[in-house]
Structures are given as structure tokens and as C-alpha cells.
């Protein structure tokens, strides 16, 4: 099994500064600033409606922020289209799985590489040597680097619609990895999973960080996992960043406890979180 050699995918540095977004009179995001440092896992948490998904959509290019900048390795990408961001090394998964249901697992993963391929229409129609060579290189690379890595070789020719929820989430991660990302954005990677699936996914996310060496930004509600695997946590509430820092520091922040519980007692938050963890 070969993985990309260290350094081939240089991890990206994402800097979001002063980002504001509004829908009519509703302020979804107000002056949001944070960083994802190269090669780290940054988690974005907050109660429902805090603006996490809006922020994700700004970074991936679906929403145009009213103010502020999004920089990838110092390059301003605030106003570029989603395909250009994909080429710059941004890949994401969706909260509600956004795979292509009519295609097999293998074709879904191959689609991730689309922006990096060169075959034009004429070559495609004739399946000429250049087109064939490119397809075969892609197949070999996908098999070696991604299918083996994520342990999905037994389902590669299955239609996506026939897979379990947990496997579909894994295929979506595989497709994002096929994009050769330098910043991987995961929108609730373990939502709706049972404990075993959650642990598998957490292990894969850590493996991606360690072996691929790329930067990861994730939105997640599962506090246990967030506190376990992230290097940096950003807490949003009502569209504003109310706290950020290492997991331990954020856990003890009275403002965070207030956002989740309505009272400023961190000990109470910890007690409730561990109760949820035991129940699950």
C-alpha cells in the first residue's frame, strides 16, 4: 500500500478574517475570524443555528460573504467560484450525504479527481491512448491510495444507493480525498452514526491527518469526538465566535457552557456531556 509521500500534498493554511454574511435582515455571521493551521484538525462547534453550515458554505463558495476575506495560503479566494476553489485544494463533504446515487462507489471516487484530469471531449469519445492512460493511472491511484486506505475494497462496484449510512459517509470521505485536497472540510462526519461507526470514522480522520498530512476543518456535534481528536476548537453562537483555543481550554470556558446550557457553569456542561457519552 502506498500513500502520498509526505510533503506531496502540502497542507494548506486557511485564514478567515472579519467574515460577515446576512440573508436580508438576518445576520447569519458577524465578524468571524479564525485560522486552520497547516496539518491540524480544527473543529467548529456551536448550538443549532449558530451559523456553522453558513460558514462552511462561505468557505466552499456557495455563499458570498458581505464583508471579510477567506485566504488559502495567503491567496484571497473570497470571490472565486467553487470549481476554482476545488483546483486550489479545497474539498468538502456534506451534512446530508451528497453522493451520486446512480453511480458505483468507484465512479463516485473517480469523480473527485475530475478537476485534475485533462481528457477532452474528442479523446473521451475515441478513448484514445491519452484518455485511456489517464483513466488507468487514476484507477491504479484510487485503488492504492484511497480504496485500500479506507477499507472499502469489498464495495467498490456496488451502487452507492445500496450502502449503509456509515459506509456512504466513508465513500464521501473517499471522494473528497480523491480531490487531492490540501484542506479537507468535513460537515458532520459522524452525525447519525452508532458508536462503532463513529470510532471508525474518528480513526480514519486521524489517519488522514497523520499519513496524508493535510489540514482538516470539521463541523461536529459529537463532543466526545471533537474533544478527542481536534487540535483547535472554534465555538460559534448566533453567528459570532464566542471562544476558540485548544479543546481543554474551550471546555472550561463559561461562555461556551452558557451557549449550550443557558447557564455559565462549565462543570455542569462537563457532567452533562459525560452523561450523554455514557448513554450512547
Amino acid at each position, binding site marked *: 500500500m502506498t500513500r502520498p509521500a509526505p510533503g506531496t500534498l502540502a497542507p494548506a493554511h486557511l485564514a478567515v478574517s472579519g467574515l460577515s454574511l446576512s440573508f436580508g435582515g438576518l445576520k447569519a455571521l458577524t465578524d468571524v475570524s479564525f485560522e486552520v493551521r497547516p496539518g491540524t484538525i480544527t473543529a467548529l462547534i456551536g448550538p443549532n443555528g449558530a451559523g456553522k453550515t453558513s460558514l462552511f458554505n462561505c468557505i*466552499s*463558495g*456557495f455563499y458570498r460573504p458581505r464583508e471579510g476575506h477567506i485566504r488559502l495560503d495567503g491567496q484571497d479566494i473570497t470571490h472565486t*467560484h*467553487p*470549481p476554482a476553489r*476545488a*483546483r486550489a485544494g479545497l*474539498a*468538502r463533504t*456534506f451534512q446530508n450525504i*451528497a*453522493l*451520486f*446515487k*446512480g*453511480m458505483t462507489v468507484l*465512479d463516485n471516487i*473517480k*469523480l*473527485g*479527481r*475530475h*478537476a485534475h*484530469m485533462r*481528457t*477532452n*471531449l474528442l*479523446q*473521451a*469519445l*475515441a*478513448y484514445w491512448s491519452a*484518455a*485511456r492512460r*489517464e*483513466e*488507468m493511472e487514476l*484507477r*491504479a491511484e484510487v*485503488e492504492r491510495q484511497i480504496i485500500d486506505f479506507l477499507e472499502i475494497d469489498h464495495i467498490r462496484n456496488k451502487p452507492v444507493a445500496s450502502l449503509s449510512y456509515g459506509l456512504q459517509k466513508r465513500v464521501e470521505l473517499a*471522494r473528497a480525498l480523491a*480531490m487531492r485536497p490540501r484542506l479537507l472540510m468535513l460537515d458532520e462526519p459522524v452525525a447519525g452514526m452508532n458508536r462503532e461507526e463513529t470510532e471508525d470514522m474518528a480513526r480514519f480522520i486521524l489517519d488522514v491527518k497523520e499519513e496524508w498530512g493535510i489540514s482538516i476543518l470539521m463541523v461536529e456535534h459529537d463532543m466526545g469526538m471533537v474533544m478527542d481528536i481536534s487540535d483547535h476548537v472554534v465555538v460559534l453562537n448566533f453567528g459570532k465566535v464566542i471562544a476558540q483555543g485548544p479543546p481543554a481550554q474551550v471546555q472550561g470556558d463559561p461562555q461556551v457552557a452558557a451557549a449550550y446550557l443557558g447557564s455559565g457553569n462549565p462543570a455542569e456542561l462537563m457532567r452533562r456531556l459525560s452523561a450523554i457519552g455514557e448513554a450512547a
Partner: protein
Amino acid sequence: MRIATAKETYVADEGLLTTNTQRAWMIILALVLVLAPFVLNAYWLYLACLVAINVASATGLNILTGYTGLVSLGQAAFMAVGAYAVAFLDGHLGTPFLLNIFAAGLVAAAVGVLVGVPSLRVKGLYLAIATIAASFILHFVFTHWVSVTGGMSGVNVAPARLFGIELASPFALYFVIVPITAVMVLGAANLFRTRIGRAFIAIRDRDISAEVLGIPLLQYKLMSFALSSFYAGVAGGMWAYFFRVVTPESFPFATSIFFLAAVIVGGLGTILGPILGAAFMTLVPELLKYVVEWLGPVFPNAGAALSPVRTIVFGALIVFFLVFEPQGLAEIVRRIRRFFHLWPFKT
């Protein structure tokens, strides 16, 4: 039962034909296609050419509607553009046959791109209505641009000539039309093994995530329109050489519905679908005609009484397929294949 199909290379695994049974069937098909003209009479040969032309056009529509998910009711109008292009080139410039056919495809593709521009904003039924509007505009152009189209009376096309041989009979044209169609079908099959074909399917299944993966939607939707109308244009060009006269009524709006029905009956988003669908839609009315003739001795007035019944039976057959096999004829073929793959273990 299907055995001994393990693949050692990715090239073999991604081939168009992956089993020896498939290869054998393909050789038989090729032999049948080559020998058919020496066996069939003129009438059936005429029908065979017509089926081939319709397969080419239906394959094009399938790229757009079946694979890219953009419903179009303009296929007949694009065919007409191709037919008029051939008539004009042949009559005014006297350019060679194959060049005219190719140019017909290119002209139709250019018109297709124009018609496809609204597809970035409108989808589904709204896009279908937009393509209907485009086909009525084109019909208006055909009837009024008299210097090129000959107005209502249309234009005549001289018999095609290839390498000095005059292709006037269905027998001669068969040997040109069928290979051209075969190449076009092969092209479509190849397309969906590459990044461009996958991008089309991605746009059909979920356009937002397609965009995140770096697929520029407008560019690919227009490419799909261009390719689909290229196929229609080439089919229309072959049609012009086959019938030798093109009028605005050669490609009525109902023909667009005919092609959409052919793709749906055959199976959306499959290579086999439009082939089976176009053959079904072209041949079944003819077969029903024979049935009516056989009933002649039994019912003295069968011809007069049963010809409307024929149309009703044809319509009922289409409804029957939509209800009982919504995936189309291609799905029936796939089911038969699966039966033989697993036999005798599971039926």
C-alpha cells in the same frame, strides 16, 4: 453461470466487453449486420436504415436527457437543422458526402449550444418548455428563410456519392448509415468511461456537489447539448440523403416526442436503451401492420376497421412498458443476463 471472469489488469476490468459471452454476441451482431442487406428485401432494408438513423439520434438525446438529466423536446428540430445543412451544402457547394454529414453535425451542435444556454437557470419541465419554444422558432426559420430552406416546398437532395459510387438505394445507403451509427454508439459508450461522461452523470444526480468537485456546470451542460445535437445533426444529415427531400414538415414536433419516448422505453442512461427503444418505436407499428394483414382473411374489413386499433395498441404497449418496466427494455436485457450469470444457483 458466469465463471472465469477474474481480471488481472485495470485495462481489462474497464473494457467495454468484459466476458467472452459478450464478445461472442457482439461478433454475431456484427455478422448479422453485415449479412442482413443480402437477405432482407427492399422494404425491410428501408426500415433497417430508418432504425439506424433513429438509433443515432436517440443515442444523442440519451446523452443529454438520460445521462445529463436535461429534458429536451427539441431533438427533431436539431435533426432538421442537420438535414437542411446537408441539403444546402450538397445543392449549393457540392461538397463531398462525408464532409456534409460531419458539417451537418457541427451546425446542429452550434444551434444546440444556443438552445442550451437557458439550461443553467432552468431545469426539468421548464427546460423542456424552453426547448419546445426553440423548436417552434426553428420551424419558423425553416418556413421563412426561403433562399436556404426553399420555404414550405422544401429542397431536394441529390443522391449521395462516395468514392464515385452513387448511393441511391437503401441497399447502398445501408453500408454507410449503419457504420456511421455504430461509430457514434461506440463513441457514446467510450464517453461514459471517462471523466467527461462521469461529470455528465454527476450533474444529473446532484449538481451542487458536482460543482464542489470542480465541474463547471454551464460548460458541461452546454457540452452535453452540443454533443446531443451533433448526434441529431448527423442523423438528420443521413435522413436527408435517405429521403432526398427536406421540408419543414419532415421533422414535425411529434418526432421530438417520438425520440423522448424511444429513450424512455429503451432505458434512460444506458447505452443499450436508445438502440432498443429506437428499434422498438420504429418497428412495432410496422409489425402491427402485418398482424392486421394476417387478420384480413378472418375479418373481411380488417384493414379499414383495425388500422385505428393499430395506433391504440402501439400506445398501449408504450404505457405497458412505462408501468411494468420503468427502467426500460435495457433493464429486461440486464435481468435476462443476470439470470444466466447465476443459473443454476439462484433464479
